[in-house]
């Protein structure tokens, strides 16, 4: 059976940052990614100021031009606005100061498929694609991991780290085993569609507009440009027919702003649980969105990179010096937990 010190489930930003921290410490790590990279993701694809700083701090690099949208590279913070019928525009926030520190306000508009692939490559860790973690057995000394996909179907490691996002299989298994006793405060479904852009009408070029219209969905809806496309995102509670929500949203954009859309290109959906943080059990750790790390109004990339890196540091320290990796992770990420609480206190996310 193939053995590694650490196996990371998930090749997104949390997994890549975690792998980077482990590689820096000389730890033998393997990433298992369920899809083939590059792969699209249900995400607006904007790197906020904190994300940009974390990339420099942990990866020593800025996101390269090759992962940017070609035409609409930057979204300015002041151009992210909430629109209300009758009262017009006000500023809308997806990022706030952390530990008294503010961040750059020129946000980078990127393609998640290209960005995630770049970040995994940049971690320097090997990544096996199309390998979905489907189960594990943990003892006090090691973890065996079962994997779907062609090739090896069982691995052994000292730590398994679930960086597998909002739909985390690793967290699901911990929950089913009665280890994770947290209760989600709310669960929303998110759906986004890309349409060829024919005319922005009166929407601001390069802007990002947020709506709180209950007839579209219980969650905010928003729209911004991605090269020649307009990306419409809607969300709601369980049972909401989100494909119908997109149609209602399209009508609002046409009626109120004169937006003209061309052919549909692609769509993506996901569910997001607003659950309290949970870091795992014994030799099975969780990080990123799988651990419940989501910042203001659903911004997940900076929380993923920062928590992923700290999680990797904690596992590396435990491997080198002994001790409980999860306790080390909780200690070294106390500022992230504090920022999460601040974000929850300022949340402005639902339209009902």
């Amino acid at each position, binding site marked *: 059976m193939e053995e590694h010190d650490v196996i990371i489930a998930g090749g997104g930003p949390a997994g890549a940052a975690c792998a980077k921290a482990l590689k820096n410490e000389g730890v033998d790590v393997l990433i298992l990614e369920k899809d083939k990279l590059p792969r699209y993701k*249900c995400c607006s694809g904007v790197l906020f100021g904190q994300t940009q700083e974390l990339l420099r701090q942990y990866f020593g690099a800025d996101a390269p031009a090759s992962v940017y949208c070609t035409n609409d590279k930057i979204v300015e913070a002041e151009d992210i606005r909430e629109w209300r019928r009758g009262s017009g525009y006000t500023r809308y926030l997806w990022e706030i100061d952390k530990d008294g520190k503010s961040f750059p306000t020129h946000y980078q508009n990127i393609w998640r498929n290209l960005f995630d692939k770049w970040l995994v490559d940049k971690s320097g860790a090997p990544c096996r694609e199309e390998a979905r973690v489907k189960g594990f057995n943990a003892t006090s000394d090691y973890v065996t991991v079962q994997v779907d996909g062609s090739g090896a179907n069982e691995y052994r490691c000292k730590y398994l780290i679930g960086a597998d996002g909002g*739909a985390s*299989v690793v967290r*699901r298994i911990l929950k089913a085993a009665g280890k994770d006793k947290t209760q989600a405060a709310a669960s929303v*479904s998110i*759906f986004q569609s890309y349409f060829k852009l024919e005319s922005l009408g009166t929407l601001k070029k390069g802007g990002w507009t947020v709506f709180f219209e209950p007839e579209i969905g219980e969650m905010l809806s928003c729209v911004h440009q991605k090269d020649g496309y307009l990306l419409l995102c809607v969300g709601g509670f*369980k*049972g*909401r*027919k*989100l*494909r*119908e929500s997109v149609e209602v949203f399209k009508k609002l954009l046409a009626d109120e702003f004169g937006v003209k859309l061309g052919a549909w290109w692609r*769509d*993506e*959906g*996901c*569910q997001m649980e607003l659950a309290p943080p949970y870091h795992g059990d014994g030799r099975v750790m969780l990080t990123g969105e799988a651990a419940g790390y989501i910042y203001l109004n659903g911004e997940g990339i900076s929380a993923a990179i920062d928590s992923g890196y700290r999680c990797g540091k904690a596992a590396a320290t435990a491997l080198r010096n002994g001790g409980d990796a999860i306790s080390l992770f909780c200690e070294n990420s106390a500022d992230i937990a504090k920022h999460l609480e601040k974000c929850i206190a300022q949340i402005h996310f639902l339209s009902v």
Partner: protein
Amino acid sequence: MAYFITSDCINCTECVFECPNDAISLGEHIHEIDAGKCTECVGFHKEPQCVVVCATDCIVHEKARAVA
């Protein structure tokens, strides 16, 4: 008999992870249930697990297919 996914599916993939029979996968546009593998979770769960997690309540029994 089996369950069936309507065109309201948003491909969130939650049902894929929950299905105890590995009966659900992405079809041409949306997810599909392999009727040969679906057991309706009878004998294991009180309700079909895909129906429990579905974001848009778009998984219905085949009997409802005609009206879906």
